[in-house]
């Protein structure tokens, strides 16, 4: 037994050195200050729904097994990047490990609360092809709190650009500067938009519909439905991103690469038109005072029955 004293000391020492370097040292050296950009769970009036309780339901239902809560540099379309200080009050952490569903870092406000709730109850009705399980067993209160939590995610991270075209479309590269130099169309002008309207009707309306709502006659035959371009999400597309999408199509869908068909000038006209599409759920206020008192989130007054087709009576 005593012949192994050195070995035993070796094992104990090794192990404690490792504990020291990878567990204790980070606790001492890595103490991020609150960035002020973390999620604000108090943003929603507690009388409407309790977002902090919603977080507990998010944990209880194991949402983090499929949804992550951190954006990476390479992620397109998931909003601002996260920083250390954003997570100070997040415990247990919900960073997640797999993205079987979309990332939820900045999910708040991306869809209306009614949509979120319907999606929790019947995921495939509002999002065909989704494999999310139905959470129809949650009680009304649980569901509202969970929706409130989802709506607060990322509510303090200000959006600068949601989506960005690949580098070759931006001014940071030579190709991008060449593209900008060749651009003669003012994409903010009514005249350019008017010119784009005809191009849109001829090339796009068959799938995207006359108003861009994704309800053109061809849409019915497509497995991946064309998007509803009137959604808020598309209102923050920069010109280059529209141009990129039109030029290179959307991989995995029937959206073609229009650079094979349309000239650069025609594509810019089209961009100008797309920017004038109507905006869904648009609310107008008459004065700034009204804007300030507007509720950040409208929680659903829907009853579960409305979303349960076979439930019976209303």
């Amino acid at each position, binding site marked *: *037994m005593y012949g192994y004293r050195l*070995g035993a000391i*070796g*094992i*104990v020492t*090794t*192990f404690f050195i490792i*504990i020291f*370097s*990878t*567990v204790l040292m*980070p*606790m001492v*050296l*890595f*103490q*991020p200050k609150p960035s002020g950009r973390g999620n604000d769970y108090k943003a929603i009036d507690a009388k409407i729904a309790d977002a902090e309780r919603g977080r507990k339901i998010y*944990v*209880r*239902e*194991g*949402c*983090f*097994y499929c949804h992550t809560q*951190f954006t*990476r*540099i*390479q*992620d*397109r*379309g998931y909003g601002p990047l996260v*920083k*250390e200080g*954003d*997570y*100070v*009050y997040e*415990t*247990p*952490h*919900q*960073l997640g*490990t*797999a*993205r*079987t569903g*979309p990332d939820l870092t900045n999910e708040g406000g991306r869809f209306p609360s009614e949509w979120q709730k319907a999606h929790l109850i019947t995921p*495939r009705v509002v999002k065909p*092809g*989704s*494999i*999310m*399980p*139905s959470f*129809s*067993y949650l009680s009304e209160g649980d569901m509202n709190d969970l929706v409130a939590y989802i709506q607060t995610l990322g509510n303090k991270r200000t959006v600068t650009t949601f989506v960005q075209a690949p580098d070759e479309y931006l001014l940071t590269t030579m190709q991008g500067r060449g593209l900008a130099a060749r651009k003669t169309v003012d994409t903010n002008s009514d005249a350019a938009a008017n010119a784009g309207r005809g191009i849109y009707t001829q090339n796009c309306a068959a799938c995207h519909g006359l108003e861009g709502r994704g309800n053109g006659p061809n849409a019915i035959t497509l*497995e*991946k439905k064309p998007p509803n371009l009137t959604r808020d999400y598309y209102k923050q597309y920069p010109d280059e991103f529209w141009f990129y999408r039109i030029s290179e199509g959307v*991989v*995995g869908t029937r959206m073609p690469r229009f650079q094979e068909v349309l000239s650069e000038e025609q594509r810019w006209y089209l961009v100008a038109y797309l920017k004038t599409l109507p905006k869904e759920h648009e609310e107008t206020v008459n004065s700034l005072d009204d804007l300030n008192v507007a509720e950040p989130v409208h929680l659903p007054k829907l009853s579960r029955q409305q979303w349960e087709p076979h439930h019976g009576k209303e």
Partner: protein
Amino acid sequence: MSTLAQTSLLDRFFSPKEGSASRNFFLSALWWSLLGMGAGMLAASEFSMPDLIRNVPQLSMPHLRMWHVNAVAVGWLSMGYVGSMFHMIPTLCKCKLYSERLGNFTMWAWNLVMTGAFCTLLNGNTEGREYAELGAILDTLVVVGLVLTAFNLYMTIVNRKVKKLYVSLWYFLGSLFWFPLVWVIGQRTFVSLPGLNDAIIGWFYGHNILGMWFTTVGVGMMYYLIPRYVKAPLYSHGLSMLGFWGIALFYAPTGTHHITQSPVPEWLKAIAIISSIFLLVPVLTVLTNFFMSMKGKWGQVVTDLPLRFAVTSCMFYLVTCTQGPFQATRWVNWYLHFTQWVVGHAHLALLGTFSFILTSSFYYSIPRLTGKQWHSEGLIRAHYWLKFLGFLLMMSSLTTAGLIQSAGWAMGMPVDQWGLQIRPYWFLRTISGIMIVLGQCIFAYNTYKTLFTKPSGADVKAKAAREVKV
């Protein structure tokens, strides 16, 4: 008279019979493996048929997943490991287990944990930390179980009759020392750390439950079993020591490679990634040692089924441990993180490698513990092929699905676009799950027939075979 009845009741539940603790641990492990793997299969089928079960919270995918992970990790693998150690350590020390009664008590405590986990996790009573879902009471009970196991086995080694410690004992002793500590640190039951520090410790634990327990005990079992199957001495004692110290040094700091793209400190990521690559050293030394010990004996896998399980396990160990360092590097991680590739990798380690070596140990130990030969060799064969082919199918479908997902992320496509493309692979994975669970059911049936339908003492020869030279 009443004293006699009491004694027999005590003996029934906390039997002092030699080998009973090990046998009971093995049987409990088998029981929880059925429930755990069954839950995994059900969760997999919910991926391809999301509306299969509705309005049953206990059977919704996330709850099944919590239970699946805990049942196979804490129930099947850990209990089976303890069972194997209860058999292997006394044999290597040429003495009896320190206390069979204590061993059986530990077995009941562990089963209590699993019953508690079954009742809580399926209802969503979770701490919300991956791999550390169990609640405070159960966490504490697991520590009790681990400490009692460690005490029992350390005392056995103190009482040993051979002077020199075989390399398996090094691995077992090391694991029994550091795993309870890793568990206590990793659970974070009574502390509330700020988000990213929580994640750092979470992944220290999440990786080391694998690295400091499943790997080290599993490799110790391989060191025990393979020389015995092929009846040849270990190729090199020096290499085995290099492998042991390599694992002890490089495995523990690798945790942060799970979150290389999150805003945690860069130096910590660097430590994790460098150690991950250095892990190739112990892995390759260990496997060289095994494969050289098997020199000239490879033909035995045709007839020796437990050996076949063990060799398959070594092969999967080679694959999983070359995959690991490669996907921990920054660029590859950039591409592959968040996808089903990682799920495939995790199954390669836990199902492909460590479940196979545990099954091998199970098939090896039970005849030696109970003195009964296996009921049917054909069923063992069926179990092997169902598990092996099922696992290959699972691995290839998950890896392919992962590559499709990574391509989707890299091209900036939203989830619902590539989500449709991986539906066939979800389906294949369901089939693979059915095959594996079917194999496990055959395994359980074979065990039942062997232990409970044969008259005891039928094969006395097998019992004698337990006394092998070290």
